[in-house]
């Protein structure tokens, strides 16, 4: 028998599960850090020590100190409470509102669909941050109002996604089969539509955690979010931006915290999208 060529194949593993575990754990750590912030800080974040102001990072103060001599590491950790917690709250609110409106419009169609979608178009047409500024301006500053302001401008995106997903689901054979089996509208929506559209929506919200964290930080940076001395990453950057040249660590450490958390939540969002599809997990 003549010689037969043999070639070696590199095998790529399906690593979605590993990635999910890694980023899930990282996100959980961030979340736990924000919940138990008080217990994790090496110093009291609000105690001033003017003798030690604007000190560069040392082993004692890993991120240095700000202009009042407050330990930056402690402030960043405590700041996670306001930043992460309120971001998650905000994203949860807009996801819920947007999905409800979207599914309702997609399923019902007709007049109500047109009206609600035109309203959401109006919201989408406004430059987001300007509108949020206006709302926050009317309601006054404060983290709570910043959340309301951002929620008011951010839900239409979710309504759009939920609506188009619902429309696509309505055309699938299994939904026809569900109708033929005599299921009521409520049952069809909760048992068949929502579970099948929640994947893409959740991915959007995961990816939005980063954006929302930045927008909240942005509002705080503009002075419409958290009020000093409350530690919040956006306002911390805003307060100290004049120190960027002389004591960069003061501005950069909350910036770094925003960067890390935005990245972790974005990557988690990506991974969840890959994992959400039961077909992608294989197994026949």
């Amino acid at each position, binding site marked *: 028998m003549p010689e*037969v*060529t*043999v*070639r*070696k*194949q590199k*095998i*790529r593993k399906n690593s979605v599960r590993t990635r999910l575990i890694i980023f899930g754990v990282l996100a959980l750590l961030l979340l736990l850090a924000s919940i138990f912030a008080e217990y994790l800080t090496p110093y009291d974040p609000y105690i001033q020590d003017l003798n030690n102001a604007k000190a560069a990072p040392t082993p004692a103060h890993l991120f240095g100190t700000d202009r009042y001599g407050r330990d930056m590491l402690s402030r960043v950790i405590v700041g996670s409470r306001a930043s992460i917690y309120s971001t998650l709250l905000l994203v949860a609110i807009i996801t819920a509102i947007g999905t409800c409106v979207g599914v309702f419009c997609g399923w019902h169609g007709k007049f109500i669909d047109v009206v609600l979608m035109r309203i959401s178009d109006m919201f989408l047409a406004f430059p987001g941050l300007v509108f949020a500024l206006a709302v926050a301006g009317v309601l006054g500053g404060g983290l709570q109002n910043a959340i309301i302001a951002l929620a008011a401008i951010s839900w239409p995106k979710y309504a759009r996604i939920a609506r188009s997903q619902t429309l696509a689901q309505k055309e699938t054979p299994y939904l026809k089969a569900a109708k033929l089996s005599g299921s009521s509208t409520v049952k069809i929506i909760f048992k068949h539509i929502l579970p099948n559209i929640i994947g893409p929506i959740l991915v959007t919200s995961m990816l939005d955690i980063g954006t929302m964290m930045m927008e909240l930080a942005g509002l705080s940076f503009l002075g419409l979010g958290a009020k000093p001395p409350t530690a919040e990453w956006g306002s911390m950057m805003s307060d100290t931006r004049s120190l960027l040249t002389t004591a960069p660590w003061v501005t950069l450490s909350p910036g770094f915290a925003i960067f890390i958390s935005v990245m972790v939540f974005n990557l988690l969002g990506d991974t969840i999208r890959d994992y959400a599809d039961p077909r992608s997990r294989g197994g026949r």
Partner: protein
Amino acid sequence: MSDPILRYEHVDISYNGMQAVSDISFSVNQGEILGIVGESGSGKSTLIKAAMGLLGDAGLVTRGDIYYKDINLADLSQAEIRKLNGQELGMIFQNSGSAFCPIRTVGAQLYESMTEHKSITKEEFRKRAINVFSKIGFEDGDRILESYPFELSGGMQQRVGIAVALLSNPGIIFADEPTSALDVSVQKQVVDEMLMARNNFGTTIVLVTHNIGVIGAMADKVLVMKDGKMVEYGDTSQVITDPKEEYTRKLMDAVPRLRRA
């Protein structure tokens, strides 16, 4: 007898370590039509994708060789195989229409794909295209060249796809389920067209399909596949009317046949 134009020798193909095709050997002579039949998951498409360099990143010919004339296709890089594609190796897919860009005329796109490989003037191209169109039974080649893809029906797009594959006069054409998306009346036209191509140009065709009717109407030889293995290989009339293997017999029995009398 002349050397075969295409030779598969003990070919194994794997996707990510999962073997999809094992130990397939056959050869195709100049001007011959080979039909490859099998049910879904039999590896029939994989088999010709290997020759066209379309296995993707996950797939690889892990064992054996695929010779086109003297070139071992299994060892070529993507870039080298792309040079051959269109020139030497023609392809027809299930939905030729989706391979066209929707906003430019068919003629413009054909001209562009031809100039990829060699320089040719627009005039020359036009003459040649209309010549090919007429040889496979298209009357108004001019009109087709000036149409946008969406102006042609699915069957028409498929027929244009065949003309495209013939344009650069390739040595061999691989057709992957070329009629499966078509209605029966259009399917017949497409089959006739491919037969005309063979008669007028002496084109060698490797035809992959699950439709045994199409195989019976076109192929000289048949290769029956199941679960990545070759079940039976022989002359079409013999395989269809007098199958040797149990599986082939079961397959032929399952085909609904029209009782005309």
